[in-house]
């Protein structure tokens, strides 16, 4: 993923251990709250970002997942989260844990589509957008 973060964006890079998914959820909720999303939508962000990070952990080749979170382009009233592959971990990919999503893939996609206002998947990057942010 090669996105230059804007001044208001938050960038987070996590290794492929499943316990990092929770950390990513906490950061996503904090940024969503800062951007003025109401609490019920903060919950949507929390769940959807967790799903996208879990998904990325088994689709990106190096198991390092990068998130860029922040307002969309000026004036759009959007909150945008990009989740995709980051840089390779020190020591190589073979040391990274592999998350087994099992049969959860279809459920994960249903949650992404049901929770975010707009979902696009470009290569190994998932872009989640929430509109009408106050």
């Amino acid at each position: 993923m090669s996105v230059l973060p804007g001044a208001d964006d938050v960038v987070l890079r996590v290794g492929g251990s499943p316990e990092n998914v929770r950390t990513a959820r906490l950061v996503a909720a904090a940024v969503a709250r800062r951007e003025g999303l109401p609490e019920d939508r903060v919950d949507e962000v929390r769940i959807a970002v967790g799903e996208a990070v879990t998904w990325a952990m088994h689709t990106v080749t190096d198991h390092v997942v990068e998130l860029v979170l922040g307002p969309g382009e000026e004036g759009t009233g959007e909150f945008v989260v990009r989740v995709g592959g980051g840089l390779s971990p020190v020591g190589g990919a073979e040391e990274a844990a592999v998350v087994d999503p099992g049969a959860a893939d279809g459920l994960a996609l249903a949650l992404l589509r049901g929770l975010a206002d707009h979902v696009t998947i470009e290569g190994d990057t998932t872009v989640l957008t929430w509109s009408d942010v106050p």
Partner: protein
Amino acid sequence: MDLTLATRPEGDRTVVEVGGEIDVYTAPQLRSALNDAVAAGARHLVVDMSGTEFLDSTGLGVLVGGLKRVRTMDGDLELVCASEKILKVFRITGLTKVFTIHPSIEDALAGSGPA
């Protein structure tokens, strides 16, 4: 918050109380608890999610797996959940049609129950 699990018998049912966050990190513990209950002979499981604060697709997958497993043994797996936040996850994924979801443990245990 991590996951807390407690299994207890209630008549011919087995109640598995799940507290905290069920996600890709903690779901294997829930899978083990359900497997252990079934291995100990439980066929009619009630998963009490009254204390559950978060549920993701991996957790849903474990619950569906548990349901499928006990159904092959003429058993069932019912849920207790009153949290709107978590019920929404079941609704979005269409799983409200798959699971019987009770608003309270009293309601779950008072139901007609297994024959």
